[in-house]
């Protein structure tokens, strides 16, 4: 990298004190000052952007060469900020594969090992215990979240309750993709809805559009001790995400596109989770769809989730 590349450029509206003062002194309207004050917390979100990051194009427009450079930059950043040696890869969708996931609510007992596995696998912020999964304790007889509780700490399972793990359903008709004003999120060939964390502008429209509360906004830079950083990272999946962008479950694509099971499935001590290829009639996931009583949440909305629930 040349010296000119390393030079940092700060964005004009992001809380440069001198600029704000100049605006006020120049007789700017009260409205402008109020606007500057209102957006000033954003200054802390992204820090300073490098020129390369600022000029980075959309993922789909990147050549192999561009990607190599970007991945190298991200690996260096991880070393600088977290002291971790990571490897960023970009596995492609496997032709002839469309992923499906199913959760057996008859055996899920709400112990939450899936949430913790997701937390570690996907380099989530340690201070908030972030995870792409929430497990709701639900009264028997409803699937409405408003009756659910994700904060329980008592021993499980409880009489009269069932446990509903919720994560991104990788909808076939994803409402979150439709509303993104900059196409920073899209559906891949294998059905996984991904986010280019460097293209996302953090407007959070997708969060509002998702009927399942599956998306998360990074309020701050994640804190992870160097030895806990998972070095096996994908550009569109579990690399450490910057503050100020939206993220979501990606069916562990850095694992599943290599044929491995997602981290939450391997961690489940009750064997409630079934993952596989919906296009393979012999797969376990197809056997679930063929032989069990299967349902999806909020079917009437027409988003067509590919994460299913079933009872034995």
């Amino acid at each position, binding site marked *: 990298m040349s010296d000119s590349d390393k030079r940092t450029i700060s964005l004009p509206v992001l809380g440069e004190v001198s600029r704000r003062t100049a605006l006020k002194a120049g007789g700017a309207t009260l409205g402008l000052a109020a606007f500057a004050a209102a957006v000033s*917390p954003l200054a802390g979100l992204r820090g300073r952007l490098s020129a390369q990051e600022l000029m980075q194009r959309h993922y789909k427009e990147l050549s192999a060469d561009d990607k190599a450079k970007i991945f190298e930059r991200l690996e260096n950043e991880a070393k600088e900020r977290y002291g971790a040696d990571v490897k960023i890869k970009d596995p492609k969708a*496997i032709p002839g594969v469309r992923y499906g996931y199913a959760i*057996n609510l008859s*055996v899920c*007992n*709400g*112990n*939450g*090992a899936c*949430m*913790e596995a997701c*937390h570690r696998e996907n380099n989530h912020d340690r*201070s*908030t*215990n*972030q*995870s792409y999964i*929430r497990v709701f304790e639900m009264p028997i007889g409803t699937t409405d979240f408003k009756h659910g509780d*994700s*904060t*329980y*700490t008592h*021993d*499980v*399972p409880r009489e009269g309750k069932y446990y509903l793990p919720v994560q991104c359903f990788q909808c076939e008709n994803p409402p979150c993709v439709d509303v993104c004003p900059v196409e920073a999120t899209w559906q891949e060939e294998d059905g996984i809805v991904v986010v280019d964390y460097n293209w996302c502008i953090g407007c959070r429209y997708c969060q509002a559009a998702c009927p399942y509360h599956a998306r998360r906004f990074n*309020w*701050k830079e994640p804190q992870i001790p160097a030895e806990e950083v998972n070095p096996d990272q994908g550009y569109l999946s579990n690399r450490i995400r910057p503050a100020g962008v939206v993220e979501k479950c990606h069916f562990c694509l850095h694992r*599943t596109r*290599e*044929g*491995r*099971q997602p981290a939450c*499935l*391997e961690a*489940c*001590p*009750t*064997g*409630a*989770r*079934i*993952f*596989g*290829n919906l296009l393979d009639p012999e*797969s*376990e996931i197809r*056997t*679930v769809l063929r*032989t*069990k009583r299967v349902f999806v949440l909020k079917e009437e909305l027409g988003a067509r989730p590919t994460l299913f629930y079933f009872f*034995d």
Partner: protein
Amino acid sequence: MMRGRVLIPIVVLAALLLSIGLVRFMTSAGASPRSEFLAATMSTEAVPDETPRWLVEISLPDGRPRVVTDRVDSMGRAVTVSCASCHSNFDANTARRSSDEPPMAFHQGLTFQHGNLSCVTCHNPDDYNALRLADGTRIEYRDVMLSCAQCHAPQARDYERGLHGGMTGFWDRTKGPQKRKSCIDCHDPHAPKFPSMTPTFKPLDRFLEPTGPGD
């Protein structure tokens, strides 16, 4: 390095062909019931596209059936004793149906809560190193899943289809192997109800516990 990568699938393929051959041989020669149940789960099915698949590795119990006593060793670990070390000499109380009935004699560390079964429903009174099926057929300890499957047919069926008991490794067995547990890895055969658990991990959502500006 490259040579190793090429060799592994070849070895697996060879093992697969060999096991298909073995199962055929065993069924034709009036094999033990084990081959029929476990063979179905051990990837010997015909694969239409001929792509070699990695095996499913099932953790089966090893050695002899043992019982937990009320003693602990110098490291604080529970002492276990092979059933046959006592019952080769004297008979078991075959009327016992639960550990709630006193006295438990040498089986102090054992919780026995499995329907209305007695010890010798599964243990073999003619040879305590082995088990037996309901019709009296002797089976080895490592084939314990056959014993479970006699009563728990829906679970056994789902296990065969990969829908019960979970797994680790690869969903795509053309790329790597899969590991699965046996019934008694998750269910204590003497008290098989899945135990109650304490949740150890909770995400802190901002409506639960604000931790700073913006949260």
